[in-house]
């Protein structure tokens, strides 16, 4: 569960938030940003239900 938690945390912090910031800073292309954000989104929804259910 700890790994899943880590993956879902990284998925929104790195693949969505940081990627958004990097794109703003011009380090990442907009199309790459959109693709990485979609991957982050999918990862979040695949992993989060497992550890959230466990926590409940």
């Amino acid at each position, binding site marked *: 569960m700890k790994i899943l938690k880590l993956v879902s945390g990284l998925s*929104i912090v790195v693949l*969505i938030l940081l990627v958004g910031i990097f*794109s*703003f800073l011009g380090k990442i292309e907009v199309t790459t940003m*959109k693709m990485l*954000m979609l991957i*982050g989104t999918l990862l979040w*929804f695949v992993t989060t239900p497992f550890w959230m259910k466990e926590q409940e």
Partner: protein
Amino acid sequence: MAEYQENLGAIDDASGGEYERTPVPKSKLKGWKSFLGMYAGEHAAGTEFMIGPLFLAAGASLQDLIFGLLLGNILAILTWRYIVAPIAVSSKLTLYYQLEKIAGKNLVKIYNVVNGILFCFLAGAMITVSATAVGIPFNVSFSVPDSIFGLSSGAFSMIVVVVGLVMTAVAAAGYNTVSKFANIAAPWMIIVFAVCGISALSQMEVDSWNSLLTEWDKGINVVQSINGKVDFGFWKIVIFSWLCNAAMHFGMADLTIMRFAKDTRAGWGPSIGMFLGHYMAWICASFMLAAQIKLTGDISANPGAMAWSVVGWTGIICVIVAGWTTANPTIYRAGLAFQSLFPVKSKAYSGVILAGIVATAAGIFPSLSGKLLDFVGLYGAILGPMGGVIFVNHYLAKKMNFTQDYADKKETGFNTTVLLAWLIPVALGLYFIFAQGLFPAYAVIPSWLASCVLYVVIMKFKKS
């Protein structure tokens, strides 16, 4: 927002529907920190995609928006802390049971139906929001007609109907799953809101505070060159952001949630949620419209198109999820309110189906969602005054020597004093809103105070 809120269901579920007619026992009380988390997800909802851009569309300056929202949100949090939490912690009853004890069962039914109708319009706006995103992959355009009951394109109306019916079917099946899904989506949604704002800044090629102000002002100029000059100044923003959830704080709807609080510190619970949803999310969403105006010159607040433009598919998913997780529990709650209109033997989901149909019908008219700033003010102006009655009953009844919990003590199902104390201020408020053009949020506090005074005066006059 407001709008609310949808994840309220979480705590209702946690209680398993228990303690609806008894005070919450000590063993079930929660510390104030649990309220921080719960409210955090609650105020980042589908409505934020709509409300944020409307500030720019209404001509608010960026400085006024930033400082006005700051002050308004602080005032809202203080209202929860010092008006709602003390009563909730002391009585530990739901709004409805508390109201039943004061107003009587039959009057609460009327209040419920009014609440249900307003919920339907809110859900309708969220169906429209979700439909704007669903339409993007199908290249279905979304236009806001001038007249309130004007329609958008036929294809868009069809999408609204399909989205509305799906949401209604899910709500009729019960909303536990949606409520759980909303909890899962909440942290993701908050981050996506933030990135939408960041990406919009990038689209506007903003690299300093001054360049942001320039782009914002250009956006306002474009809007005003089309819509004419309008004024949405600092104090209007303060009042709106303070009172857009008036039904929940001044109107005491959140007694139902805060009755689970161990102490009054739970009143600070909405603080993080308010600053994420009604500050960060609104500002980020308004940046999306500024970016859209710069890129296309289009001034319509179309959440689906704006989110698609800034973050692509993630934005589309976010708008659909945000609209869905807001609309679904709203339809469910409106359905519960309407259920009392059906015969006892009717199916449990009859009310939800009726609510879903009304919400879908409302969603077909895009202008209604475009009037969300007015609608949430109206919502508070209609439901808020009932909170004044509860406030007076709690604090002043004993001190001023009239009967506390009148309907309960006198065993009546309809307390006409409450009806008058509620209806007179609401009727006056509606007159000023619709006949005199008053901004609806301005009516909330005068109506609330009038309701307090009327309840005291009539109760004393009746020598109750």
